[in-house]
């Protein structure tokens, strides 16, 4: 029920269309219900052979014609208004989830499966929209129909109308019982669907690995097992869901039969007041109309249930905790680039300590290198500087100001960043390179590409700088992607630089050239470089040597070599067997 309220909140701004839909519902349903009256009248004027009053029939037919005209127009308007309400609600919902994802701490995004989050934005939002359309349509025309038919039925014969009113809730009772019965099978089905989806995501998403290991058949076998299970559970859920409609329809048919019998008896003996044959025909039509909303609600029950489940998933994201708002925090001009770590402690999970009591002063324009074996937490420091993750204890100062006092956007803007995972968006190469610096001229961009040795391969692409990078950038090699990321950072021309294994996918020849460009770029800018090729960071002002999340040594290259410690070991292992 709570989810219903939350979904409806998204339609609040469409008050106008709600009211319009409501008015249209009243008018169109009203006339729909009115039409049987002239129909009944017309029939009442056909008493028998030679006793038909054509003038009266004509006036009835005219009434019918006018009513049809009005009904048609308002029915269309009502459906359209409902569409507007739900289409806009879906739009806003999607937009909000997307925005929400951008305010989420990275730990949340790292923890949740991407496919799952994506499906909340796409499929789940869609299901909410579908459900919403159904609910609004059913609700409005349903309520008006029920109220309207009741009024008409009562105007014909109150006693008979009461019979209908008393008997109808039976169908709701039946629907309710069935609904409760199938709720569990629906949950089971949903769960299994999720399981199947993630299995497919793995096996199909990594089809190339599957092929390399000739794993296709075994993959199919495991899938077969899940698929068989889904068949059983799905059959149960589907059938349970499919019970509701015939059962309610049955109950309603019984109501119809009862009304017919009692009505006929009333006409004969008038034991519940007077009733004409035309009146009975008219009444029966209303009785049929009256039960329609009940039938229809059970018909779309599955859809509504799906919408609710989907809505719940969407709101779970919307209600997750965002990074705290920091619009009241400090803004920065161009930073000088003094960075200080003051007694910083951090860990991803509370049970595994990572960085503890780390302090370091980096002067403006200095180059800091972070080295160490794989998985020792080199990237963690970058995460902390950029405030992708927040420190547990201590603080990091930029130009003497704690970074926690600075707006995150402002802080991050100070850094040009190139990561090991090269991320590009689908768009042209030019658009990608201009990403950080939308005002850059084409010349500036091309110059940045030249500096990062990306120019020559870009020129060779079918459309040069206007070549589209497609989904997953499959038309580019890992090295080319990385070169583009470097060019993107070069085009930004930031006060500080972060290079997180920025050249790991580039061949060493190109790397040397890129390093030269970096050197030029880093001149006078504070920079942090994570590297595993130690040859590239020998000239850094400070080298931080990390091991198991701790900084075990720090100093300049020669200094560290003299120490004959862990760095010495690492450095020599690179060349040992050549």
């Amino acid at each position, binding site marked *: 029920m709570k989810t219903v309220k939350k979904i409806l909140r998204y339609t609040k701004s469409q008050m106008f269309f709600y009211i319009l839909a409501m008015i249209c519902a009243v008018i169109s349903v009203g006339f729909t219900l009115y*039409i049987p009256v002239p129909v009944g009248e017309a029939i009442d004027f*056909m008493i028998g052979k030679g006793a*038909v009053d*054509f003038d009266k029939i004509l006036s009835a*037919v005219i009434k019918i014609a006018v009513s*049809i005209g009005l*009904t*048609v127009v308002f029915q269309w308007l009502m*459906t*359209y208004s409902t*569409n507007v309400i739900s289409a806009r609600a879906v*739009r806003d919902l999607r*937009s909000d989830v997307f925005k929400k994802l951008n305010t989420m701490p990275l730990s949340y995004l790292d923890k949740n499966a991407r496919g799952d989050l*994506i499906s909340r*934005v796409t499929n789940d939002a869609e299901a909410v929209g579908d459900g919403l359309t159904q609910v609004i349509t059913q609700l409005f025309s349903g309520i008006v129909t029920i109220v309207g038919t009741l009024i008409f039925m009562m105007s014909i014969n109150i006693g008979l109308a009461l019979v209908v009113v008393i008997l109808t809730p039976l169908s709701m009772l039946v629907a309710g019982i069935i609904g409760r019965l199938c709720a569990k099978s629906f949950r089971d089905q949903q769960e299994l*669907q999720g399981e199947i*989806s*993630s299995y*497919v995501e793995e096996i199909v*998403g990594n089809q*190339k690995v599957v*092929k*390399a*290991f000739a794993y296709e058949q075994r993959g199919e076998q495991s*899938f077969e097992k899940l698929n*068989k299970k*889904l068949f059983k559970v*799905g059959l149960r859920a*589907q059938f349970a869901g*499919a*019970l509701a409609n*015939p059962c309610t329809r*049955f109950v309603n*048919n019984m109501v119809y039969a009862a009304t017919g*019998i009692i009505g*006929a008896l009333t006409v004969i*003996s008038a034991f519940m007041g007077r009733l004409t*044959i*035309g009146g009975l*025909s008219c009444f*029966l*039509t209303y009785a049929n109309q009256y039960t329609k909303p009940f039938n229809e609600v059970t018909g779309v029950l599955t859809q509504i249930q799906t919408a609710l489940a989907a809505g719940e998933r969407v709101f779970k994201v919307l209600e997750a905790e965002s990074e705290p708002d920091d619009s009241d925090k400090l803004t920065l001009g161009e930073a000088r680039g003094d960075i200080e770590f003051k007694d910083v402690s951090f860990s991803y999970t509370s049970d595994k300590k990572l960085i503890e009591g780390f302090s370091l002063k980096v002067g403006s324009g200095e180059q800091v290198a972070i080295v*160490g*074996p*794989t*998985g020792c937490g080199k990237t963690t420091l970058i995460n902390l500087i950029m405030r992708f993750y927040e420190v547990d204890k201590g603080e990091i100062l930029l130009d003497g100001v704690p970074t926690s006092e600075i707006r995150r956007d402002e802080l*991050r803007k100070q850094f040009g960043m190139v990561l*090991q995972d090269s*991320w590009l968006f689908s768009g042209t190469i030019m658009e990608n390179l201009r*990403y*950080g610096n939308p005002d850059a001229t084409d010349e500036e961009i091309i110059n940045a590409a030249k500096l990062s040795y990306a120019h020559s*391969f870009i020129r060779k692409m079918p459309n040069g700088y206007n070549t589209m990078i497609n989904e997953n950038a499959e038309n580019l090699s890992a090295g080319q992607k990385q070169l583009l990321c470097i060019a993107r950072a070069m085009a930004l021309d930031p006060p500080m630089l972060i290079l997180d294994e920025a050249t790991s*996918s*580039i*061949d*060493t020849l*190109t790397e040397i050239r890129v390093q030269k460009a970096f050197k030029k770029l880093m001149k006078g800018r504070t920079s942090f470089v994570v590297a595993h090729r130690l040859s590239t960071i020998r000239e850094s002002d400070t080298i931080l040597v990390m091991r198991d999340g701790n900084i075990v040594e720090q100093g300049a290259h020669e200094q560290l070599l003299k120490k004959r410690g862990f760095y010495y070991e*690492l450095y020599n292992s690179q060349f040992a*067997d*050549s």
Partner: protein
Amino acid sequence: MIKLRRFLRDYKLQLIVGPLCKLFEAVLELFAPLVMAQIIDNGILKNNTDYVLKMGAVLVLIGVVGLGSALVCQYMASYTSQGAGTKIRSALLKHIGTLSHKELDKLGAPALITRMTSDINAVQANVAMVMRLLLRAPFLIIGALVMACFIDLSLSLIFFAAAAAIGVILYLVMTRSLPFYKKIQSILDRISLLTRENLEGSRVIRAFSKQKAQEESFDRETERMEKTALRVGRLSALLNPATYLVAYTAVALILWFGGARVNGGSLLSGDIIALTSYMTQILLAMIVLANLVVLLSRGSASASRINEVFETEPSVRELSDKEVQPILSAPKLEFRDVSFTYGDGDNELEKLGFSIERNTFVGIIGATGSGKSTLLSLIMRFYDASSGEILLDGHNVKSYPFSQLRSSIGVVPQKSTLFSGTVRSNMKWQDENAADEEIWDALRTAQADSFIDSLDKTVSQGGMNFSGGQRQRLCIARALVGDPELLILDDSFSALDFATEKALRQALLSRRDRTLIVVTQRCSTIAEADKILVLEDGTLVGEGTHRELFEGCSAYREICLSQLKAEEAAR
């Protein structure tokens, strides 16, 4: 949709019985107004209470029998649709398994995943819907038409005209709105793409403070979606009112002309009541039909997306399923004049020729984009060479069954992918019967035993609970299990630090009964190889040992010098 009908083959009985039950229910439903007319004509007009009660009982009976047959139909529909969905799912996965890399690249994994999940679900729902309702509606319509004929042949002309008019309306609305549904689907794909990008690039986006720009381009798509949905909404919203208009115009006509018939004495007023209620029945059935048509046109979009995959033929085919006996005197691997191109563009590989002897260690080195990974894909027949031939154990790779070819080669791909399950289940990918001891051996060789304490350790999707370097080592171990005679490592040390890499390399080389091919960009990795192949722009520019190449191959020398100091390299 029709193209997928083969998946319904096993459900002939259900497909016949289900709709027949629906037909029966519909017939009964048609009788109800007739019975009511009888009640009016024979019961009320003749003041016969007994008759009213008797026919009332018939009405109840009709309801009960109707419920029974409806339930049978519902079960048949559930069974058939769920079964067909299950079959399509299996068949599609199997078909995807036969596609080669070229087709996988073209279709793209995300698109395949949607087809496997939501598209199949949509088709499945459609099958059920068709069985339940689509047949029922025409039955009701045809039935009402027939009944109308029985009552009065000339008045039934109005019925036929109305039914035809409604049919035309349905057809028009459906054909007009179909393109919109296709467009909506493509916008949805785009929304999904943007979300994926936004999640994958979250660090970069935040580093560049581009959240606003991302949101704006996303909002553009959602707005486009809204506009398109509303445009098609305007169109499909026409269906009900238009149907309504036709049906009640027909009712008015029936009253007018029917009045004349009653006046002439050929019809009773009860007949007119029956006729109008048959018209209402047609109206209701048509509305159901209209809504179904909308749903069906969406479903057929899904069906055609599924078909697109089924109709994609693998470009690399298994030519024989007979196991091939290796010729032990032949080299382990031989490339003869092999050229390859991905599409119509320049050759990715140009006339490569070399051979790799049994139980040797061969390194392949070259700059980014020089064709190293492509070369490996050809050995495994992920793609077929455009010209020339590749021989494994003296036989053309094309003469091997896929499973023999691929399972005889242990491969460590560039991207370290693990699958959810346990360490053990991942390690058994190559050899499903591997014993724990064998797995531990492989883990030790791959330097992965340090962070694995139990083979039952959980591996989450993609192996995300391990660091990049750990994943890489696990992938190496995975390839070692089953003791393949040929082991290929495609730049598989990139996330390892030098100390770990060195230990790993030494462990690998301690076994000399295995052919080892290592693709890399670091010369230190392959300095002690028996043979090094140097690739540049898809051609082989050097072949020999480290020392020979360092002296004689300028490309190789340049690579080495870029990584090491001159004196270190020459050592």
